[in-house]
């Protein structure tokens, strides 16, 4: 993906803080959980942008805030040139037709009391797109598209396996012909052999329908597999963003390097050969992020830099064409 492509989504300095209140009688503000803290990136039309990070890195919050399922605390979200943060509820609902979401847990995201036909038809009804025979045909067409038997329309979610339920979620997301689909850990609850089925389906549908994906996951190998570009998040911030091959061959942020080396390789020989960076400690609490660089408490390089990393927040900057990184020490290391 290059800069010649049209930007479908532009995120500028997005922040989402969740307030922490204490006290039952008189509630007072104790602080904020900085789930997303000053994040900027673009998503180009037709690409898959992978957003990878560990638990609590804020990747899901980014996805939800783009759809304004959470109200952003600060910052701008442009979708196809329209500033979403300025829209009222009615306008927002209109434009949400063009952006859909697939959730992680296919057991919790489908209403167990209604048939899958009604589940898939709901978006069509809400937006008054189709009714009667037309609606029925569209639902069957969607089921076929995601590889399910169209005769299953009258069955209930419990009659399906996890992988099939995720196909139903995909069909529901595609019902309105969206431009953007936000996939929030769509495969992490599925078994390995089923994950591949769903990923292949997502790839096929993207080609057929020209979809743009924001693919959120914690599995670095899977994100690299499906993405054109990847962003690595840590504690509410993007640490590094680049093309999938660039970030793999030339990771510049020490966190990205550590994350890559921690991913298990299904190959005993290659696993023995590679050098590993094992990070100490845990991810800090997003209510009290470290002063200076967010990663400084676990960074193997920060002690070398002495004051800088512990006092000053690094700027997220384009170090070379299309390769963005937020690290003070990047200049100290060779760049290919």
């Amino acid at each position, binding site marked *: 993906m290059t800069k010649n492509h049209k930007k479908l989504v532009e995120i500028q300095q997005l922040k989402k803080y969740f307030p922490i209140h204490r006290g039952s009688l008189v509630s007072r503000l104790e602080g904020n959980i900085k789930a997303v803290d000053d994040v900027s990136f673009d998503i180009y039309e037709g690409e898959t942008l992978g957003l990878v990070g*560990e*638990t609590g890195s804020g990747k899901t919050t980014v996805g939800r805030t783009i759809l304004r399922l959470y109200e952003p605390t600060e910052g701008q979200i442009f979708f196809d040139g329209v500033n979403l943060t300025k829209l009222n509820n009615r306008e927002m609902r209109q434009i949400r037709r063009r952006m859909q979401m697939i959730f992680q847990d296919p057991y919790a995201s489908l209403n167990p009391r209604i048939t899958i036909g009604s589940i898939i038809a709901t978006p069509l009804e809400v937006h008054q797109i189709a009714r009667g025979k037309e609606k029925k045909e569209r639902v069957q067409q969607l089921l076929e598209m995601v590889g399910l038997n169209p005769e299953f329309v009258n069955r209930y979610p419990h009659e399906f*396996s996890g*992988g099939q339920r995720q196909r139903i979620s995909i069909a529901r997301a595609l019902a309105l012909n969206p431009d953007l689909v936000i996939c929030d850990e769509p495969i992490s609850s599925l*078994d*390995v*052999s*089923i*994950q*591949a*089925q769903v*990923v*292949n389906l997502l*790839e096929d549908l993207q080609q057929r329908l020209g979809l743009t994906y924001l693919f959120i996951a*914690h599995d*670095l*190998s*899977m994100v*690299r*597999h*499906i993405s054109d570009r990847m962003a690595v998040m840590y504690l509410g911030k993007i640490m590094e963003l680049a093309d*999938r*091959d660039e970030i*793999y061959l030339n990771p510049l942020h020490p966190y990205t390097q*550590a*994350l*890559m*080396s*921690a*991913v*298990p*390789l*299904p*190959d*005993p*020989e*290659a*696993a*023995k050969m590679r050098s*590993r960076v*094992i*990070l100490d400690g*845990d*991810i800090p609490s997003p209510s009290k992020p470290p002063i200076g660089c967010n990663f400084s408490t676990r960074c193997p390089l920060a002690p070398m830099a002495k004051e800088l990393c512990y006092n000053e927040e690094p700027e997220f900057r384009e170090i070379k064409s299309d390769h963005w990184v937020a690290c003070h020490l990047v200049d100290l290391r060779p760049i290919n």
Partner: protein
Amino acid sequence: MENTLLEIKNLTTRFYTEDGVVRAVNGVSYSMQQGDILGVVGESGCGKSVHALSLMRLIPYPPGKIEAGEVWFNGRDLLKVNASEIRNIRGGSIAMVFQDPMTSLNPVHTVGFQINEAIIQHLGMDKKQATERTIELLTLVGIPDARSRINDYPHQFSGGMRQRAMIAMGLSCEPQLLIADEPTTALDVTIQAQIVDLVRRLQEELGMAVMWITHDLGVVAELAHKINVMYAGYIVERGDVLDIYKQPRHPYTIGLLGSLPRLDEAPGTRLVSIPGLPPDQTRLPLGCSFAPRCNYVNEQCLQELPELEATEKGNHMVACWRWEYVAGIQSL
């Protein structure tokens, strides 16, 4: 065989449920040597956890029942010993670490108390000695400032630290065999790397055998010496780790490896998915249980159950009628 630590013969476990008889483990046989690291790999429902619980006799009855089999450990059949003996073995010479460290630690007792309890029970130490031992163990598994942390409750520990505490508890009585059931599945990759590294180091230092149960073919590739691949309650392939990953023989293993994306893959690689779903274990097919999803299926596969047989390499075993044909296709 020399130094055999554990020998399982024809282990069979079933669950009698309202929906029918679930055939969870179907005649599993294998042995483990002292100091081995064995990876048991398979998807949910393949019987990998149930087989481990069965050998510790931790299957709830009803609905579960160990129908048949022998589990030889230190010259005794664990399925035949009396209740007090098995209690001494559990947590004593065989220890177990479970997947979810939050639910396997008791939230109303301190971490120190829970580890002490095991030491007092099994090693007969007094409270003061046990506390010293607990501090030593927590330090060994990499918990900083262990002396003050023993008074913390589980909720004051992070996920990775809880799993370290569980491992410390498992190690407290110097087990000969540590069974780790998906110990890193609930953890982030950077924390998983810490735990895998810890277990590898402890295994080398203490010389115990480790059985690592997982659905993640990546984790055991780095850690294990030998692999058992399970499907629908059967071991379908078994061998040295290099043979399993470099020359998988069972179509299921081949499919499983193909469906994993690799961090170092070339651009444009497409995942090989296994069609269909794992079978309903109340209604297992007559022949090979993988036959309905297999690309190489023939009439014999549908009619007769294949047993583990040696491939061209003696200790590499596969349960497939057509492994030679499949191997031929794979080498093309």
